[in-house]
């Protein structure tokens, strides 16, 4: 039953020892790339219809996705989409958006979401309640953050709310940003960006705030001397500001450097801090 090529691939597989720990798609050893190209060439040489070919690509995409090998997953999902086949492709459209989100690539995310939306308009039979919620949430997060009522539903609630918070801060709509936060719930257990955003926004909106009421102060007091993340740094800046109405350029520069190195997606907080002055 086995052809020569599958036997040779089996033999090569038996000889290999791949350390999963070190596995990254870009690091795939040359022999794996060779094996993959051999297998694909075999597929291309044979008259296998596009429906079956598409099914294989989708399954490969799913397997790679489940192991976090997103570059390879993306490659196979795109192959599936590029085939002219009539099979269901909801999985490929949705997971390609998820991969772009994971990569933090906003342009690609929006472009792929546009394609997914178009696909589901034409294939409404594949749009169940879960897909509908996903489409609605992604539309709001990607296209119209902060619009509509401030009600965030279950599974996607935090994601949509964080997106709104960031959007309001980026647009300098600080009062709106503050209004979506729930002061009675914010604590040490909160997401750090939510906690420190709350402190920044209170100082921006209310001006006069008691230093001891900053949510970051108890955290700062407990922190070790070398524990100097953005919460602690911003907390220090806010306390200085509340005392002297000034922001130390050195502190700001240090924070900017830190955010750029470790939390690039939080650099939007800098503009808000600068607006204190």
């Amino acid at each position: 039953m086995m052809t020569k090529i599958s036997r040779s691939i089996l033999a090569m597989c038996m000889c290999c020892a791949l350390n999963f720990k070190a596995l990254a798609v870009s690091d795939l050893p040359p022999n794996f790339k060779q094996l993959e190209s051999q297998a694909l060439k075999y597929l291309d040489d044979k008259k296998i219809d596009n429906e079956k070919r598409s099914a294989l690509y989708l399954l490969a995409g799913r397997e790679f996705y489940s192991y976090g090998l997103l570059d390879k997953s993306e490659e196979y999902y795109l192959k599936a989409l590029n085939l002219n086949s009539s099979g269901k492709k909801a999985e490929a459209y949705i997971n390609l958006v998820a991969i772009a989100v994971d990569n933090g690539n906003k342009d690609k995310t929006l472009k792929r979401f546009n394609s997914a939306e178009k696909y589901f308009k034409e294939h409404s039979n594949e749009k169940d309640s879960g897909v509908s919620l996903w489409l609605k949430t992604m539309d709001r997060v990607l296209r119209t953050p902060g619009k509509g009522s401030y009600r965030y539903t279950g599974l996607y609630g935090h994601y949509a709310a964080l997106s709104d918070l960031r959007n309001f801060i980026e647009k300098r709509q600080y009062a709106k940003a503050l209004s979506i936060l729930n002061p009675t719930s914010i604590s040490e257990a909160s997401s750090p960006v939510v906690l420190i955003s709350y402190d920044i926004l209170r100082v921006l909106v209310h001006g006069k705030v008691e230093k001891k009421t900053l949510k970051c102060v108890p955290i700062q007091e407990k922190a070790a001397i070398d524990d100097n993340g953005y919460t602690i740094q911003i907390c220090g800046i806010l306390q200085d500001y509340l005392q002297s109405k000034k922001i130390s350029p050195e502190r700001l520069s240090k924070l900017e450097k830190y955010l750029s190195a470790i939390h690039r997606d939080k650099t939007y907080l800098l503009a808000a801090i600068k607006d204190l002055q």
Partner: protein
Amino acid sequence: MKVYDKIRSFILAMALLLTTFLFQGCDQGALGFVEALHNIVGGASDLLTSFHNFATGNTWAQYKEKTQEARRQASISPSRMCVALDHSSGQLSSLQVDMDHVRDRFCTCKAWGTCGKGNCSCDTLCPDNFEILNRGGQEMGPTDKEDFVIRNNAQDFAGVHNMTGGLCWGLAAMNSRFNHLAFFQPAKPKPTFPDAESRGRYYRYIVDSIRNNSPLDIDGFSNLKEFSSDTQIREILADVIGHEWGRQAISFQGISSISTSSPLDSEDAISLVNDLKYRTENFQTPSLLFNVKGDAAGSAHVVLVTEVRNGPNGTSILCIKDNAMAAITNNNCGNQMIVERSSGKITYKSTGNADEEVGFAQIAHNENSDVVSQINALRARCLADKSGCYRSIFQQETMDIPRDVF
């Protein structure tokens, strides 16, 4: 028929290829994948349903078979699993030495899996089955010390509907990964760094490694609670947990599991309970995705199941580690799901909240691939840890072995 055979051949080749990408050894995983592919290419037209039982699940099932086989062998022969070293090696027993003493002083083996260093031979310390997940209890996250300080606090936002909405999936997945893969070394000093950036890069590497299911040492910290209490680390964890949430919840696999809130029937509920029981008895803390009856997406939540107990009147009790609750409430099975086996009805009883009837419930789609990855990664580490074992015993000329031992 000829074309069909060729398709099958390609499937085998592709399956082996993909499987080999994922595993260190080449003797595992292929069969289930072939079967899954065969089912799809062999004529199933609806991919959404065909993929329901996809390949990784079959690979997990193979580990289940391996575990059962290893235990069966162990019961009929002491040579396969836990066994005193002098019984497993005739050569060594002829030396008539206190092998435990030798091992303690010279062997670099560490206790792994169920076997302790005292009663396992070096070659059985790294089992290629679920036993490798045994971390002496840490893997089950029995207390709040094995949990994050960060909670799934969706109520931070004034307009959030339902307390379960948040980062639950990311928290559950990362909690389980830390409990299986982090080797906290409190006796070792915390590393020091010249500035916040280099410290941040170091801890981001650690957190990313755990996210990618790679085990490593974490020096200077006793447990996950202490680790996640460090503000800088907490910020990094929050970022990574957010990404992990997205990878699971925004995916097709995540969406397909929030499309219904219909409760399970009795047969499905019993099957779920049995599966959860098997997993928790085999050093796993499966992520359970569920929603409240009548509210499919609004109440979707992911928790960890740490134990399955027999309850009164034909019920089963699932001990729940809920990241939306204060961590301490999860201790001693403080949050529970009660499964009525006769009807399939599941009731969630969480501390301080009204009872809720569970709608749809299933093991999260990332569970099997996580377990498979962890087995491979832990095994690789185990093999590396004990690499000096035999050498240190036999290469006496290169080792400073006190003569009085022999």
